[in-house]
């Protein structure tokens, strides 16, 4: 004779009958009562969840539906991790929480390079700011990254203080390149043909004021200190529709500048690099970058499309993707910003376009 059962084994018994438990139930009123309760919960849930099943024929996807979805995912996979503008077009109006988290993440990533492991130049000490002038790939395990920025990660980042994004606008479609230049405050890249859409982003500043409270880990010396991220103006010329990753995109942004107030940038960076929201491997790579006040780390998916460092029109650049046509992206570091060319094109084509842009 076995001992009395708990709700776990009784629940499993409902699905996979256990002869020994059956024998026990015959002579045990307590277990029989518990079984009835467990079965009632299970039955109730089964009935309620059965209502959620789509009606027959309602969800049947045709082969063409599946192939279309596969094509969409393939193009997103090729582009999504490295074209923020494409992502913002695909998902208009991200939630404020997500935007805050992403702004925080961007600040963390950029600040990751903002201090060398040992010492700084005299110039850097005087100019307590980061100005993006050089691109450097850092590999990111996207699964770990996504895991870090679940709801908990978002809350942890938001808990560091107050983030003011009121000065930052969403990218907007404008009438033409001239209007984009006026809005973004930069010169547009040279275009080979008239684009189907022109998107522009006005420059703006995101302000993160740290607040030491409720055990959020912010050290007392950073309480009230602020990090100001000057998000540059940007222009994107898009070929093809805007409701999915574009056939081609030629874009340009001004320089990214990050400033500190109320505390040295180094102190803020050191603190942010202790945050567990960043995968350890990424933190290690960021810490190891030498030219800390001018290097923009470019996240490269660990298992994503291949990439190589190249020269385009005499400027250093990073090219992602291959000649499959599934997707490619070229980031060219200019003297005063970054030029981007990408889309559902081959990397050879993207490099040609980037050379002319």
């Amino acid at each position, binding site marked *: 004779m076995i001992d009395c059962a708990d709700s776990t084994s009784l629940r499993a018994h409902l699905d996979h009958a256990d002869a020994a438990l059956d024998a026990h139930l015959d002579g045990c009123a307590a277990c029989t009562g518990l079984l009835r309760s467990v079965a009632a919960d299970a039955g109730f849930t089964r009935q309620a969840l059965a209502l959620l099943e789509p009606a027959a024929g309602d969800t049947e996807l045709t082969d063409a539906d599946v192939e279309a979805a*596969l094509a969409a995912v393939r193009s997103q*996979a090729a582009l999504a991790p490295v074209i923020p503008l494409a992502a913002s077009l695909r998902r208009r109006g991200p939630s404020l929480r997500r935007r805050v988290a992403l702004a925080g993440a961007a600040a963390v990533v950029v600040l990751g390079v903002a201090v060398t492991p040992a010492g700084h130049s005299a110039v850097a000490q005087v100019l307590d700011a980061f100005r993006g002038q050089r691109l450097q790939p850092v590999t990111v395990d996207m699964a770990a990254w996504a895991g870090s920025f679940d709801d908990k990660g978002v809350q942890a980042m938001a808990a560091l203080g107050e983030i003011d994004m009121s000065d930052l606008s969403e990218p907007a479609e404008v009438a033409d390149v001239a209007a984009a230049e006026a809005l973004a405050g930069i010169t547009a890249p040279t275009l080979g043909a008239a684009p189907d859409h022109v998107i522009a982003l006005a420059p703006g500043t995101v302000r993160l004021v740290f607040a030491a409270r409720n055990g959020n880990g912010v050290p007392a010396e950073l309480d009230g200190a602020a990090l100001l991220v000057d998000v540059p103006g940007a222009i994107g010329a898009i070929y093809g529709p805007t409701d999915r990753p574009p056939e081609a995109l030629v874009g340009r942004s001004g320089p990214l500048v990050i400033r500190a107030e109320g505390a040295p940038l180094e102190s803020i960076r050191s603190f942010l690099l202790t945050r567990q929201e960043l995968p350890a491997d990424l933190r290690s790579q960021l810490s190891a970058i030498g030219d800390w006040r001018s290097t923009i780390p470019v996240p490269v998916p660990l298992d994503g499309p291949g990439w190589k460092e190249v020269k385009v029109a005499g400027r250093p650049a990073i090219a992602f993707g291959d000649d499959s046509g599934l997707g490619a992206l070229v980031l060219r570091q200019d003297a005063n910003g970054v030029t981007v060319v990408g889309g559902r094109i081959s990397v050879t084509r993207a490099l040609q376009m980037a050379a002319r842009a």
Partner: protein
Amino acid sequence: MAPLSDDRFGEVFRRNYPRLVGLARRVLGDAGEAEDAAQEAMLALRTSPVAERGDDEVTAWLSRVVTNTSLNRLRSRRRADVRAQVVGARDARTLSDEPGDEVVVADERDRGRAALGVLPERQATALLLRHAGHSYREIATALGVAEGSVGVLLARGERAFRRAHEEMTR
């Protein structure tokens, strides 16, 4: 680790996508949103080390991801007040031309989804997978728990689901 080959990805996609859309549809109701959730899960697979594992593990992982993604979407629809969502939807339908029975069923569906949305993630995932016909073993693989623990999740989940559902009915 080598990236997931395009051929392999296509094969995994075709085998799993319709099932994932079905799972997401249970949680979300809306067909388009369910497809978005399923595509999100497939996109995540491309950069996950899981992609190199056996078919069973890939299938289980995708089930968990699409369920979590769908539950997150469900929660974010009206995180602050799921009860208001249920009541509001019911009031809106009462004023519509839907026949009475359909209104009742739609209310029940809303309550079911809202109740799922307040459960701990593992419990909700276990319930959804079990009641979509997955075995204890598949659920255990999807959730990364011992097979013997599935009964715990189901028993606790069903109890919590019923309470939440009844609470929303009051």
